[in-house]
C-alpha cells in the first residue's frame, strides 16, 4: 500500500521511504487502524517508524515539531487554543524489524478551550526483541478536552517490552479521557505508569485493557490526584490473564480538595495458573472529598458462564467470549 502523493510527508524523498511507509501502514492496520485515514488531507497525521519521522501532516489548529534522536523521536504536538478539531488526529508508531529500540519523547500541549481526539496505533508485528518507551508530558489547558485512544498490536512472539509513561496536567474545567488497549497479539512486558494532576472541576477518565497469555507480564501504575475543587476522576481497568501470565495493578486516587470525587473500578479474570494482583490505594486529604473503589479478581462469573453454556457454547468458547467482551 503506497501513501497518497497529495500529502506533504516528511523525508519523502529519502530512499526506501515508500517501502517503509507502506510497511507502517500495514502495521497500522494490524493494530486496528484504518490506513486510509493516514492519507486524508483533512486528518492530521504523525507516522514514526523506529527513529524515522515518515509523515507529519498538519492541519489548521494542529502543529507538529518532530525530530529524530538516537533510537527514537522527540515530538511536540500543539493544538491551538479554542480549536475544535473535527477529525481525530492519527498517530502511528512502530518498529517493523524483529529487534530494536524506539524511544518516543512526546509533549502534548492542548490550548485553552480546544477540543481534540487522538487515535494512536502502536504496532510491532515482527517483534522478537523490541523495546518501545514512551515518555510523555501532557498539558490540557483551561476548559480544553483531550480524548486519547491508544491501541497496540505486538505480534505473536511476546519478545517486546512496552513502557508508556506519562505525566498529565489538566487545568481548570479541562477533560482528559484516555483508553489504552493491548488485546491483540502477545503482550510481552507492559509497564504503564501514568501520573495525572487534575485542577478545579477537571475531569479524568482512564480505561486500561490488556490480555496476557503465556509468560506475559502486565504492570499498571496509575495515580490520579484530584487537586482542584470538584475535580472528578474514574479509572477502569480490565485485564485478563491466562497460562502463566502475571498482572499487577496499582491504582491510586487522591481526593485533595473540596467536592473532589473519584472512583476506581478493576476487573481481572484469571485462568489456568496465571496470577492477578490488585492494589488500590485511596487517599483523601479533604473532609468534603470522596473516593471509592471496587474490584473483582478471579474466575469468570458463574452466572455469565452458565448463561452462555445454556446456548450451547462449550466452556472454552464461553470464557473466551466473556474475556473478549470485557476487554473489547
Amino acid at each position, binding site marked *: 500500500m503506497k501513501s497518497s502523493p497529495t500529502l506533504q510527508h516528511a523525508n519523502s524523498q529519502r530512499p526506501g521511504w515508500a517501502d517503509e511507509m507502506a510497511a507502517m501502514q500495514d502495521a497500522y492496520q494490524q493494530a486496528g487502524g484504518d490506513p486510509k485515514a493516514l492519507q486524508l488531507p483533512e486528518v492530521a497525521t504523525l507516522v514514526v517508524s523506529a527513529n524515522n519521522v515518515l509523515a507529519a501532516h498538519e492541519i489548521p489548529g494542529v502543529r507538529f515539531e518532530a525530530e529524530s534522536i538516537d533510537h527514537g523521536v522527540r515530538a511536540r504536538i500543539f493544538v491551538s487554543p479554542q480549536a475544535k478539531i473535527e477529525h481525530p488526529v492519527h498517530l502511528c508508531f512502530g518498529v517493523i524489524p524483529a529487534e530494536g529500540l524506539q524511544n518516543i519523547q512526546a509533549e502534548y500541549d492542548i490550548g485553552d478551550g480546544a477540543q481534540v481526539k487522538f487515535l494512536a496505533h502502536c504496532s510491532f508485528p515482527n517483534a522478537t526483541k523490541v523495546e518501545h518507551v514512551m515518555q510523555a508530558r501532557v498539558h490540557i489547558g483551561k476548559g480544553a478536552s483531550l480524548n486519547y485512544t491508544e491501541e497496540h498490536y505486538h505480534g505473536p512472539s511476546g519478545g517486546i517490552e512496552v513502557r508508556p509513561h506519562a505525566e498529565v496536567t489538566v487545568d481548570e474545567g479541562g477533560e482528559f479521557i484516555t483508553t489504552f488497549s493491548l488485546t491483540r497479539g502477545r503482550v510481552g512486558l507492559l509497564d504503564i505508569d501514568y501520573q495525572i494532576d487534575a485542577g478545579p472541576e477537571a475531569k479524568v477518565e482512564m480505561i486500561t485493557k490488556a490480555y496476557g497469555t503465556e509468560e506475559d507480564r502486565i504492570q499498571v501504575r496509575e495515580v490520579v490526584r484530584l487537586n482542584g475543587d470538584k475535580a472528578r476522576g474514574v479509572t477502569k481497568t*480490565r485485564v485478563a490473564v491466562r497460562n502463566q501470565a502475571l498482572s499487577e495493578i496499582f491504582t491510586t486516587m487522591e481526593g485533595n480538595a473540596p467536592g473532589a470525587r473519584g472512583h476506581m473500578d478493576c*476487573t481481572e479474570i484469571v485462568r489456568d495458573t496465571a496470577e492477578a494482583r490488585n492494589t488500590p490505594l485511596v487517599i483523601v486529604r479533604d473532609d468534603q472529598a470522596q473516593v471509592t473503589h471496587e474490584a473483582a479478581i478471579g474466575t469468570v*462469573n*458463574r*452466572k*455469565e458462564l*452458565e*448463561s*452462555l*453454556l*445454556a*446456548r*450451547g*457454547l*462449550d*466452556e472454552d468458547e464461553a470464557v473466551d*467470549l*466473556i474475556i*473478549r*467482551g*470485557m*476487554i*473489547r
Partner: protein
Amino acid sequence: MQKSNEELLKIEHLGLQRNGREILNDVNLQVFVGQVHALLGLNGSGKSSLAYTLMGCDGYKPDRGQIFFAGRDLNGLSLTQRARLGITLAWQEPARFEGIPVGKYVGLGQSQPDRQGVVDALEAVALPAKVYGYRAADQTLSGGERKRVELAAVYAMRPRLAILDEPDSGIDVLSLTEIAKLIRQLSHEGCAVLLITHREELLATADTASLMCYGSVIFTGDPEETREYYTGRCRPHLETLGAQPWQEEINS
C-alpha cells in the same frame, strides 16, 4: 397451536438436597412437545431450583430420581450437552455482559448464523434491532430490556424445550402482551415451554399447569383449575405456616 401427545420431558421422583436441606422432593412431571406447561407456587417453593436442575447448573445435581428428555436420561450430561440437545433456560435475573453486543448475544444459540433470525427475535420482544442490536448486553440495559433480550435469545435458538423463569417479573404491562405472543409462537413452532410465572396474563398461554409446594409438585391440571387451587386453598394455608424451610437457602 401445534400440540402433540409426544412426551418430551419426563421427571421421575426427582430429589435435590443442598447444604443438608431438601430443596426438591419426589418431583414428578411430564411436558409434551409443543405444550406450554406453567409452574406455579410461592417464592421458595422450588420452581427455580427445578429449572436449574433440569438445565444442569452448577450445584444442582439431583441425588435421587431421573430426568428423561426425548427418552434420553440427562443424568451425567453437562449444561452444554443439554443445550445442544435443545434445552435452554431464560434466567429470572439474566447475567449482564460487558462488551457483548445484544445482537451477538441473541444469535449465540443459533445452529447457523442467521442475521435475519436475530432481527426477528428482537422484534418479537419489541426491541428494534436497529436500536438494540449494537448495544452491549450490560448494565446499561434496564431490567426489563435485559429480560426481553434473554427471551429473544431463547427464541432465536429455536430450542425443543424452553425453560422460562419468571419472564414476567420487571416487565411493563404492554410488553407482557409481546411476551405472551412469543410464548405462543414458540409453542406453535413445536417448542415445549416450562413457564414459571406469577402473572395471569402469561398463565393464559398455558395448556396445563402444575403447582409446587415445599419442593414437590402437589397438583397438575388445567391452568385455571390449578390457579384456583393455588389461590383458594394452597396459598392461604402456606401463609399461615410462614417461611418455607429452604426459602433462606434459595434466596441466599
